[in-house]
């Protein structure tokens, strides 16, 4: 029974870390992976989601609806940002990095002015279950489940819907898509908005486990970015999954062997090593292998 609790504890932590990274990165894979824009204000969009969740929740709205509202709010904020600022920086990677960092500073400092440094908390729902002498929060498993659903949803939207087809065409070749009658301006704005909305939902869900403050965002942006970069752009979804499995794995392992801080370092170290070996991310490598095996089997 003790061994079972121990093993379950590891698996539980692993799933928790996976869910965390996927949620943090899911909005960014759309914005960076597909649009090639680095949004340093992604964490602040999550913060907006967290605040919306907290305020609507305390106004009496049930938590799931509060979280959806967070998605809507962050999505609208994202579309406004895209129209006002981001669209001028599509072909300039380093400049987009700098300008979105400026936006991130404006958001966190603006919220600090308006709401003060005080920290908000929302009770975590669903309670706990015990195994042996340890207790485990149910909500963490719910987060994991939702993160999986989110990935599946993103995949489905970009594979099956008309918007998805237009979006992929636009990312592939904007001029050609434009010539074929796709309203590329709308596609850019909506794609950015969708990424922001996912960030807002993630922020709303983290709001139920983490403390909410104007500096909420900085905990997530670098992590989300590293997760996406390690995944690479060749196939954002398989890339994200592979990257999350590796990073969460190393984090869980080192975490248990040493401590939380070193676990975080272990994850960063793993990310760095993967990037040094595969500068274009895991998915690029997977795609290359796939092509190679296909050709090998085709020749026989």
């Amino acid at each position: 029974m003790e061994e079972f609790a121990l093993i379950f504890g590891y698996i539980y932590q692993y799933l928790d870390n996976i869910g965390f990274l996927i949620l943090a990165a899911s909005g960014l894979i759309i914005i960076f992976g597909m649009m090639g824009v680095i949004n340093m204000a992604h964490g602040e969009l999550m913060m907006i989601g967290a605040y919306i969740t907290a305020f609507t929740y305390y106004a009496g709205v049930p938590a799931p609806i509060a979280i959806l509202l967070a998605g809507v709010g962050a999505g609208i904020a994202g579309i406004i940002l895209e129209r006002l600022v981001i669209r001028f920086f599509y072909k300039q990677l380093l400049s987009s990095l700098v300008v979105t960092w400026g936006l991130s500073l404006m958001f966190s400092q603006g919220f600090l002015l308006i709401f003060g440094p005080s920290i908000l908390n929302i009770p975590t729902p669903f309670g706990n279950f015990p195994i042996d002498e340890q207790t485990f929060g149910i909500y963490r498993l719910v987060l994991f489940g939702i993160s999986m659903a989110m990935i599946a949803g993103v995949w489905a939207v970009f594979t099956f819907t008309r918007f998805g087809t237009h979006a992929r065409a636009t990312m592939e070749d904007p001029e050609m898509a434009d010539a074929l009658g796709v309203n590329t301006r709308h596609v850019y704005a909506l794609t950015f908005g969708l990424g922001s909305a996912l960030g807002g939902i993630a922020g709303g869900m983290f709001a139920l486990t983490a403390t909410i403050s104007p500096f909420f965002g900085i905990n997530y942006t670098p992590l989300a970015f590293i997760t996406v970069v390690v995944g690479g752009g060749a196939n954002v979804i398989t890339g994200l999954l592979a990257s999350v499995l590796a990073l969460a794995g190393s984090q869980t392992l080192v975490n248990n062997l040493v401590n939380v801080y070193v676990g975080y370092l272990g994850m960063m170290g793993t990310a760095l090593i993967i990037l040094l070996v595969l500068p274009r991310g895991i998915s690029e490598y997977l795609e290359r292998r796939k092509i190679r095996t296909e050709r090998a089997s085709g020749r026989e």
Partner: protein
Amino acid sequence: MPGETDTPIIEVRDLVKNFGGVRAVAGLDMSIYPGELHCIIGPNGAGKSTLFKLVMGIQRPSAGTIFYQGRNVTRLKPFERARLGLAIKFQAMEVYQELTVFQNLFIPLRRHHRPKQIPEQAAHLLEQLHLAGTEEKLVSNLSHGQQQWLAIGMSMAVRPEVLLLDEPTAGMSPEEVSETARIVKDLNAGGTTIVVIEHDMAFIRNLDSRTSVLHYGKLFAQASFGEIEQNEDVHRIYLGTM
């Protein structure tokens, strides 16, 4: 004409380059001899530009070996090959758009000259390239043809043994094309081995050199341009463009 008995200055053996599922260069064997002026032609996608990138080291071959002056350079980095005497002018990347003509020339000229000698050397080069007196102009204010000449001049400025030119006449007027042919022939007469990728047949006819035809990443034919022009098989793959 250099004889085939000389040691090749560049030799590639069984050279292969795959991009995903596409085989751009497919087991190519080819030699370039010292002092030669050599043209490479072939339909789009024949692997010409890829061959140049592999020789310069910008891309790594999937398989095969590259020799320079008898030495295996397959694993050397681009700057190491450049120091051995290779230079290139690519199809797209050629000049530093935001800098002046003088700044553009300074960077390659500094390889073999002291800073004090550079103004004189730059003026001399610009003279040869019909760009005299443009030192302080921004490159973006030059015409397309002038930018191409400057790009060739920048590659000449490092005094290479071998110069690889990828489509030097792209976008030029007929007068500019014949002027470019003169520049290339002058440079070759000065002892530099030159390999040219071109689509402009008037230009290649003007150069009248040994010519290789690439097709699907392989050497399809090699002869003097006169013979290539008469070759029925070449006509078939290259239909209508000659």
